[in-house]
Each structure stands twice: as C-alpha cells, then as structure tokens.
C-alpha cells in the first residue's frame, strides 16, 4: 500500500516537472513567439501588431507570473486558446484523443494476438523451421519503418487492389462498418511492427523461463507439458512482455504521428503536427503536456500491473 502511494507521489512530481519543462522550453525559445507567429511568410511584422499580440498572449508579464498563471490554469484543466482560431485547446484535444487511443488500442490487441502465441511457439521449437521463419519475418517487420509500411499499404490495398479507402475517418456512430474499414489499415500498419516487438520479447522471455529451476520442479512433479507451458512458463514470461508492450503503447501516444499523417486519420498526433507547422504554441504546449501526463500515468499503471502479476514486487 505504501508502495503504491510512493509510486503515485513520484508520478505527481514527474507530471509537475514535465509541465514546467514544457513551459520553460517554449519560453526559452530564441525569438519571440508572437514575432515568429506573425513573421510567417517572410514578412517583417509591424512592431505595434507584435506588441498587441504579446499583450494578448500574456507575454509581457514577468516570467514567474506567467508560470504561476500557466500552472494555475493547468490545475483547472485549462490549456488556453489555440492561436489559429481561438478555440479552447482542451476541447480540441478531447475531440482528437479518443481517435488516437483507439488506433493504439487496436494495434496493441493485434500485437498481443499475433506476437504472444507465435513467440511462445517459436521458443518451444527453438532452431526449428517455424522459429527460423517467424524470426526472419519479425526482423523484417522491425526494419520497415511504420510510414513505409503505411505508404506501401496504401499503394497496394487502396490504389492497386482497391480493397479499402486510402484513408480518412468516419465516426463510429455514423457508420460503424466504414469506421472499422478505415481503422484497419492504420491500426495494421502500427500493429505489424508492434507484433514483431511482442514476438521477440515473448520468445526471449519464454527461452529464459524454460531454464529456470521451477520449471524443472514442475517437470519433476510430473505435470503435463501443456500445463507447464501455460501455468509456469507463459505465466511468468508474460510479465516482462506486458511491461514492454505497455511502454511501447505509451511511446505510441506521440508515435502515431506518421501513421495518422499517412492515412489522414484525424487523431491527436496529426493535430500536433499541424500545430507545430503553424507554430500554435498554446496548442503544442497543451498536446505535449497531455500526452506526457498520459505517458507518466501509463508508467504508473504498468508498475501497478507488475505488482499484481508478480507478488515479489508488492511490499
């Protein structure tokens, strides 16, 4: 219990530090955000206009006041307004985030369904034909960057075979079938690499566990091979696999950028790229803060999950 509270405390501190770092990073940028924003397109902006925008963005206040204000707003889930259209950043994020999460979740499920069984099977027959073929496929899958997979998928399945639309998004509530059809390719593009990661992790973990003394004990007890595999090998081997998978899903929070771009999937990462391109600071700060908080939260969740799976961690 104290273990849990301590982890929670550390996470809260980390979230605070992250928010501070993002704030400072934006404010230490060489050049003035207002000036940069207005000078898009190579024109030198009028000094009066810059000053007005600075006023509007609160940039004229001393740094510590700005910081206090920023933190105070964060505590109230207020991330300010987008510089492009004055819409609240929080609302925009809330609209986009579920779509990105859906993508990640679908890819994660695919990775578990493919990676864990094949990884276990490959380890059990180490050096055999299945192991060698599946390991080679996994190496290839790991080597193809996600945007390459995505682009090739678009070319083959959408342009040449015309199985599915090249990309886009339809809300589930409007047309579930179309929604899922559009989800398949982006989720698949992420899922391929992720499956390869899970495959490798599972294979290595199973090979490691097979050498453990308690597996020998189970054999000495006369337990059937299938039961040893399920109860003793996979059960323990899954712990590191689950950890790595969860952390991978976490990195995907920002890592779906490329796939969303390729498939025109209007998720959070796509919003981030357009915000970066437009130098929409409040939006960039908002998105990065939200994703980092989610990432820290996920790490916490992984630790808790690990505690549930492995009684030795609980103290």
């Amino acid at each position: 219990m104290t273990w849990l509270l301590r982890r929670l405390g550390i996470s809260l501190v980390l979230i605070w530090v992250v928010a501070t770092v993002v704030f400072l990073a934006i404010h230490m940028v060489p050049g003035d955000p207002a000036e940069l924003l207005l000078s898009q397109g190579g024109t030198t902006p009028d000094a009066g206009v810059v000053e007005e925008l600075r006023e509007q963005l609160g940039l004229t206040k001393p740094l510590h006041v700005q910081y206090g204000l920023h933190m105070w707003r964060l505590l109230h889930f207020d991330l300010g307004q987008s510089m492009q259209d004055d819409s609240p950043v929080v609302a925009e994020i809330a609209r986009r985030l579920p779509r990105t999460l859906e993508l990640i979740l679908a890819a994660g499920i695919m990775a578990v369904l493919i990676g864990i069984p094949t990884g276990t099977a490959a380890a059990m027959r180490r050096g055999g034909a299945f192991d060698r073929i599946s390991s080679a496929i996994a190496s290839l899958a790991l080597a193809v960057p996600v945007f390459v997979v995505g682009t090739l998928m678009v070319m083959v399945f959408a342009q040449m075979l015309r199985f599915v639309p090249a990309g886009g998004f339809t809300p589930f509530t409007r047309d579930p079938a179309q929604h899922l059809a559009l989800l398949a390719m982006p989720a698949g593009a992420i899922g391929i690499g992720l499956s390869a990661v899970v495959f490798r992790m599972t294979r290595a973990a199973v090979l490691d566990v097979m050498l453990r003394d308690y597996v020998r004990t189970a054999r000495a007890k006369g337990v059937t091979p299938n039961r040893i595999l399920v109860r003793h090998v996979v059960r323990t081997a899954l712990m590191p696999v689950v950890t790595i998978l969860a952390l991978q899903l976490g990195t995907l929070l920002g890592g779906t950028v490329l796939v969303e771009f390729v498939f025109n999937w209007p998720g959070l990462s796509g919003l981030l790229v357009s915000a970066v391109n437009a130098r929409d600071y409040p939006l960039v700060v908002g998105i990065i803060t939200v994703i980092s908080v989610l990432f820290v939260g996920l790490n916490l969740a992984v630790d808790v999950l690990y505690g549930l799976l492995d009684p030795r961690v609980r103290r």
Partner: protein
Amino acid sequence: MRRLPWTPIAAFALIVVIALLAPWLGLANPVSMDVPHRLAGPSAAHWLGQDEFGRDVFARLIWGARVSLSVAVAAAALACVVGTTLGVVGGFLRGIAEILALRSIDVLLCFPPLLLALLVVTLLGPGATTLIPVLALVYLPGFTRVAYAGVLTARSQDYVEAMRVLGAGKSRIMLRTILPNIGGPLLVQFSLAMAAAVVLESGLSFLGLGVVPPAPSWGLMIGAARATMTQAPLLLLWPCLALTATILVMNALCDGLRDAVDPHPAYRPTARRLLDALAPGLLPTPRAVLDLRGLTVEIDTPHGPIHPVRDVSLQVFPGETLAIVGESGSGKSVTSLAITGLLPGAARVISGAACLDGTDLLRLSEDRLRNLRGAAMAMVFQDPGSSLNPVHRIGDQIAEAIIAHRPMPRAQATSAALALLQRVGIPDPARRLRAFPHELSGGMRQRVMIAIAIANGPRLLIADEPTTALDVTIQAQVLDLLADLKRERGLALLFITHSLPVVAEIADRVAVMYAGEIVETGPTAEVFLNPRHPYTAALLRSAPVEDGPAPEGIAGVVPPPTALPPGCIFAPRCDRAAPVCTTTHPALEAAGEGRAVRCIRWNQP
C-alpha cells in the same frame, strides 16, 4: 567479448563506404532538375529513372544514405558523449551530481521520443542541423543509464578501491578503469541509437520536419513519391527498399553486438532420446527400489562429446539411504537427473539401465516417465529459493503435484496439501498455504519442496544437495525430517551431497564419485573407518573433523572431462600411484562384504 557479428559488420561497412564515396562515384547531380523528363523510367544515363522533377533517382538514393548516416552518426556520437559524461559523473561523484544527472534523465524519459523530437523541432525549426541535437536528446538517456550502471559496478570492484587508496585522482580512475569497462555496453547502445536515429530522421523528413528539400533524404523521397505512386510506383519502392535494407543491417548489427557483449545461455529443446536395445541380460537385483547399471551420459560440446558420468551402477533398497558423495563436477547431479529423465537438452544417456521397481526408466516413453515422476519417484533440489515458482501460492504448487497424479476436486487437494505442510513441520500451515515462496525462509521453502516430493507417496526420493543452501541448524532439522520420513514410509532415499559430515549423519551406505565414476562403495561406517580407495582416504583427511588434526587438501585438480587420463583417472593426484596405474583403467571390484573399490592397488601394501 565473444564472436563479433561479422556479416552485419561487413554489410554495414559497405553501406558506409558507398555513402562516403558518393561524391566520387561519378553520379549524376542529385539536385539538378530535368523537368521535361519527369517520372522517366530507367535509362542508361539514369539507372533507376528520374523523379517528379526529373532528378536522377539512383544518385539521390546514394546521397540520401550519406545524409541519413551522417545525421545518425553525429546524433549518436553527441548523445554518447553527453549521456556517458552524465552517467559517469553522476555515478562517480554521487551526491547532488548523481541526483541531477539521473533525475534530468527521468524527466526526458517522460516524453515519448517522437514527441520530444517534435517539441524541439517546434522550437528550433526543421533542418538537418536541428535534427542532430533533437535525435541526440532522444537517445541520451540510454547512454546515461548504461554508463551509470557500469560505474556503480566498477566502483564496488577491488581494483578501483585499491587505486583510490593508492591516491589516484578521481578523473584518472574514471578514465583508466571505468571507461574501458563499459565500452562494450556503450558500443551496443551506440549502434541502437544509430539505427533508431535513421528511423526517426526518415520519419521526420517524411513529415517535412527533418531534412529540408531539395537535399536528398530517403524520408523526403518517400514522402514526395506518394503523390505519384499510381503513375510511378517504383519511385516509391526504391527509397523504401534502401531505408528498410539499411535498418535491417543496422538492427542485425545491434543484435550481434549485444550477443557478443552479453552472451547468455538459452534453453535448447531436444527430445529425450530413448535407449532402444534392452539392457543386455541383466537380472534385476531382488528387492532393490532403484537398480542402476552401467549408466553412461554423453554431452555434446563444441570440443566434441564428453562423458560426465561413466559406467555408474548402484542399488537403493527400501528404508535405506544411499549417499552419493563427490566434489562438484564429479557427475553426481548428472546421475540423478539421468535417472529421472530431466537431463538438460545437450546431454543424453548412451548406455545402461535404471530400474525402478523393475521398470527400466531409461527405456520408458516421456509420457509414462512423467506418470512416475512426482509419484513413484520424487525429487528435492538444492536451491529451494529458485525451485518454487515465485508467482504461485505454496498451496497451489503442492496441490498441483497431487492433482497431476491423482485427479481430485480442488478443495480436497488443498486439504491434502494442508496435511502435508503439517507433516513436514511448517507452523501455522493454514496461513502458509496462501503464502508466496518469497514470504518463507529458506528452511521453510525446502520443507515445502519436501512436502511436494512426498505428496504422492513415492517409493524413491532423490535429494540433490537439499541442505547445501541452508545454514547449519536448519540443515540438521531438514536432515532429521528426511530421515524420519524415510523410516516412517519405508522410502528408498538417494542422497546427493559433497559434504562428508552430512553423509555420516544420514547415509546407511555411501558411493564415492570422482570425475564421473564411482570409485568406492560400501556401508558408511566401514568406508569412513577404513577407506580402501586413496581418493576416499584423501577426501576424509580433507574434511574438517571436530577436535581432529587440521584438514589437508588434496593436491592437484580434478581432470577436465575433455582430457581424462588413460589409466586410473585419479593417478595424477594419487599418493599411492604406481607405473601400472597410468596405463590400466581399474574396474570396480568387490572388496569385502558389501564393498567395492576401483583401484588396482587397494589390497596391496
């Protein structure tokens, strides 16, 4: 470091050389346009055709490698220098420096990598020069962690302490001792960072946030070719192939380096090979629970097959304890694993017979053998800490053993488990049923292992160094428990140990093993009082005796199983060796009532 991964090293070197030589390869100018010939197919002048501006695709591919690799190398090098410095300084100076270094890394790790990159690109704007610090920042934590861990390990080692005592300055110690030590892991980290940087660079360029056009970059090429993929699919394919092949080679390089730096053994499955021929005309010893005849085990090694157990014969009778005693490497554990069919993959029995109540275990199918394991014969292993599964409750692990042989409802198995815990003397057994192994002491865990072993009323119990991992008083209690169980249930107990006092305490008869052979057997008291083999005698002299003379060690070392002496295997260390001993291999011959000895000169003065 073990074998280096030469194939990926060569492939990677080839890519690097091509990238380095790009200006001198006589390639077309990668940025000069030729709009009238846009999207032209392959020709003599343009091997892979021309892109959407009529630029030469082949030249752009090669120059793209140059951009990709130089960004990756520069970023990895920057990350390596900064990250390693942070780690070494943090680990070495401790105190505030340590906290600062590690915590700043923790904060970096709070951002998913691509996000971190995007944040920096927002701040500094896109371009190849921005990419390097961006990528360096993303891969810095890995170096810091490796360096920090390396320093912590090195710090605790004697030579660093020694240098410190000798007054060497901190910076000198760092440079001279620690950096070379963490070189291997850092190299691995470097290759990982480089491979990942190639991926990230291409991704950012693809998004238009990395390398700025018209400079050639694979990511940019892929991005641009998307627009024309229906007219010119090959234009898309070439950079995809180049990128994937490069990453494939770099990943293989990383894996190879990692294996070379950190070699670890891994499980190798092999089907247990059965002995086909029936044991040649052996009459089973009447009444013996275990009757082992001429057991020989072979292990395949890179230097050819070795035989860690040769021609071992022994019998164990009901209600009797036979101890196999020998130094580590004498083959005593391999013998027990061979009997139970639990030999690791590389080892196999090549001859002999092992009859359990008349059934030859070495010629049973795995399924039938499994039915005997944990039932008619049971095992207790050396280290109870690692022999119990850490994630399952004690009660479940005992119940599993019961149910494996006697299917019964869960509740019934649990109450049987409770009774077993009570029998092996675990206090408060009802609560302990729900405990996890790490919540018990070593002695308790070994009692649990014994409970599992006796769960199905075995005829034969094999205990392999069951008390070695325990401290002395607990050791005595566990020995008493085993002796009680043996008496109470008429068990045949095969007890494997390296400790003569333990043999004296528990064994009715003893078999002394040396380098894979039994050299002497007989009733414990007689063998101890009057050893007939020079090795037994030397072993007894080397054992600490209460109030006795100081023990003397045996001169020399056990011969390695790859180079056994041709005659008597003990001859090089034997104080009674005669010339004949180095040419003739002695057989195990009867030497009085119930005794046998493998020595040519046992009855000579």
